[in-house]
């Protein structure tokens, strides 16, 4: 048995297989609910209503999708150029750190420039964090999977040190958290009264801009060419190393915007549980999106919806929360498998 690429998958294949994955997830969810003693078919309804059944639920899902769009974009951009950035989690925290450093206490920048300054500083910090692994890769051939992955732990420990030390909120009752950012440093809501901040809007704009860059500019052409075939890109006269470094700067910066958006739009301060693994989930989002920048948006909404819906379902149906975890993992695996099978078939020799 071996895998065979399908040159031009049919529409039926592209729609049918992901639908089948959803159906299989649903079936598995019912089975698990049955085992846990709940009404099997009610569970699925609870997930859907939990994710999108009310205004509150929907906004919760959109809020949850916001950092996933940023990290998903970060990973999609990098993977497209065959730069395996597994460090979006660290870059996210680097961005969150900059947001707090500039926005907390008495902000150094005032007025309408404050929020852009926080965003720019966050982007720069994330970009710089990935610059090191990118240079090590292009200059010395060091595997960036290892360096970026390990930087996640370095960064988390660094943040932990800061939160126990210089950044510790004196009013925090001993909890390791930073001071809250100033009121004018907070991202406004998109619609007054609705709990959805502008981070979501920024994420959509970022996805569009990344798509524009990749599909319509010479730099994006180089990024894609280097990723698909670096030897041919070099032979055609493209600056391969420079392209990898540029990609790294963009990817790291995008991931950092997730941290900025979480701090400035939602949490208001920096804690060690700011991200429940948004950086790692970004890899899943990017893979589900087939690395397409615009595809990242529905992929992030899907992942966020399952996060939120499964969580809500476990509370309502009174089943253990780990059923939600299993369902989430199964949904992601099955969807990834379906998307893979859209383009490949298993052939027998």
């Amino acid at each position: 048995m071996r895998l065979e690429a399908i040159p031009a998958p049919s529409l039926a294949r592209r729609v049918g297989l992901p639908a089948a994955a959803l159906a299989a997830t649903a079936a598995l969810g019912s089975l698990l609910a049955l085992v846990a003693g709940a009404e099997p078919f009610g569970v699925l309804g609870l997930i859907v209503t939990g994710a999108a059944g009310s205004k509150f639920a929907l906004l919760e899902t959109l809020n949850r999708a916001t950092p996933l769009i940023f990290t998903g974009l970060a990973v999609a951009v990098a993977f497209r150029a065959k730069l395996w950035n597994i460090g979006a989690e660290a870059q996210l925290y680097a961005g969150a750190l900059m947001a707090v450093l500039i926005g907390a206490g008495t902000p150094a920048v005032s007025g309408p420039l404050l929020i852009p300054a926080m965003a720019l500083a966050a982007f720069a910090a994330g970009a710089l964090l990935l610059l090191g692994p990118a240079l090590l890769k292009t200059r010395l051939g060091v595997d960036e999977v290892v360096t970026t992955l390990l930087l996640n732990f370095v960064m988390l420990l660094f943040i932990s040190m800061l939160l126990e030390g210089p950044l510790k909120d004196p009013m925090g009752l001993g909890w390791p958290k930073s001071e809250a950012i100033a009121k004018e440093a907070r991202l406004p809501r998109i619609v007054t009264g609705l709990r959805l901040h502008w981070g979501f809007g920024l994420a959509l704009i970022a996805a569009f801009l990344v798509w524009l860059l990749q599909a319509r500019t010479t730099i994006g052409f180089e990024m894609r060419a280097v990723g698909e075939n670096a030897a041919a890109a070099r032979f055609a006269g493209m600056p391969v190393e420079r392209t990898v470094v540029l990609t790294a700067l963009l990817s790291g910066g995008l991931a950092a915007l997730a941290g900025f958006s979480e701090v400035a739009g939602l949490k208001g301060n920096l804690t060690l549980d700011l991200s429940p693994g948004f950086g790692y989930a970004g890899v899943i989002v990017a893979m589900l999106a087939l690395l397409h920048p615009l595809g990242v948006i529905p992929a992030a909404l899907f992942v966020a919806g399952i996060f939120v819906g499964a969580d809500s379902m476990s509370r309502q149906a009174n089943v253990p929360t780990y059923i939600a975890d299993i369902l989430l993992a199964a949904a992601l695996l099955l969807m990834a498998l379906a998307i893979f099978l859209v383009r490949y078939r298993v052939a027998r020799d």
Partner: protein
Amino acid sequence: MTEPGEGGEAVLALRGITKRFGPTLANDGIDFELRRGEVVALLGENGAGKTTLMNILFGQYAADEGVVEVFGRALPAGNPKAALAAGVGMVHQHFTLAENLTVLENILLGGAPLWRPGLGAGAARARLAALSAEYGLKVEADARVGDLTVGERQRVEILKALWRDARILILDEPTAVLTPQEAEALFATLQAAVAKGLSIVFISHKLHEVTALASRVVVLRHGRVAGAARIAETDARGLAAMMVGAEVKAPALAPREPGPPLLELEDVTASGGRVGLRGATFALHGGWITGLAGVSGNGQGALAALVGGLARPETGRMRLEGREIGADWSPRAALAAGIARAPEDRKRDGMVGDFTVAENAALETYRQPPFARRGFLNRAARKRFAEDLIRDYDVRGPGVEAPIRLLSGGNAQKLILARALAPSPRIVLADQPSRGLDVGAVAAIQARLIAARDRGAAVLLISEDLDEVMALSDVIHVISEGRLSPPFRRGTMDAAALGLWMAGQGFEGRDAA
């Protein structure tokens, strides 16, 4: 005892082997016999069908027609296990060893039964030591294969075959990757093996090796047996003529005087590939096709890298229209200097498989107007350009917005050449431009090269196909072991004479001079 190859029993016989790949006839009714204790060389140019024939014998391909008999018994077609069991061992051109395992582990791999894991490592070690002493194949049983030199790896491959009691050994271009010293050691080993009763088929296109080792030679050309002879009754010149064919295509180009030298190399050494370049001097003249004949892996890669902008000379000079190349010599600089390139490995270097035909058409020019302005791509201009190219060059495929990997090799090559020749380049580097293409595509591509030459461009044609080089070139250099022969004007040399230079003869006198 009978003299080897004289009256010995036939250990191997191929009768009427025919194999087609699509429209290509790779083997056409081939008969072949190997007797006990003899070395038969299978000689022929690349694409002559040697490797296909041996893969049929070893069971990796099933022949469309014909039978393989080993020790008088027909082998089931397409079954390597049966071939192994019958005593046929094959040493491939590209080794099939696991680099992270030791020598001993590699030899046991696939042979040792899985359900008896403890099968005395000590006994195995002793047997390996005995084998290696018997045949003079020195290896360290516990060395990691990844740490071995190429020559040592080859010894492991041969030992692997002997371990499985091979009585017939097939060696596919065994010296292609070896240094001359390693090659001599290999020959000594093989002679020892023959003395112990092994029979060997030795695939090569190097004349001097064939005459040094084999007792008999069978020459293949275009999938057929072109001739057979006992080594004692022939010479290198006769073999060369048999290999490349006496007939040479009629000249398809009108003679003309050369233009000025557009690219000159002066005593250039460069690394790259197995041998690199050793003191190469030559000039590419405008209005001429300069052919570079030679067996692949003799320095062509290093020369192409130099001209294409991927490498710089280590010593010596390289001048473009009289001016020495700058420190910023790169593919981009080469393109800017008006050098068009069709790479040897077109899939790896010439195209991005998942990009569309249109994107590949602008792969080298994407950042110039009209394909881009202010950093933004103009996709409409790119598409028009690609449509013009596929019309002019008759590139057939599913359209300019389809991925280029869907194109056949010939059509992809036409597109690469079309793209390269579109800006009317001053210099054209065509590296194996017609390798693997069908007759129609070959003719189309050769016509384009001649058109570029007639326009006044300097064309460097690197090809292993001596017929092609002789038919297209105004002047020919032969490359062998990184050295360049003097230029031979069109019509002054025949295939046999060039074949001798390709085999490395002729350089000796020059080195001494």
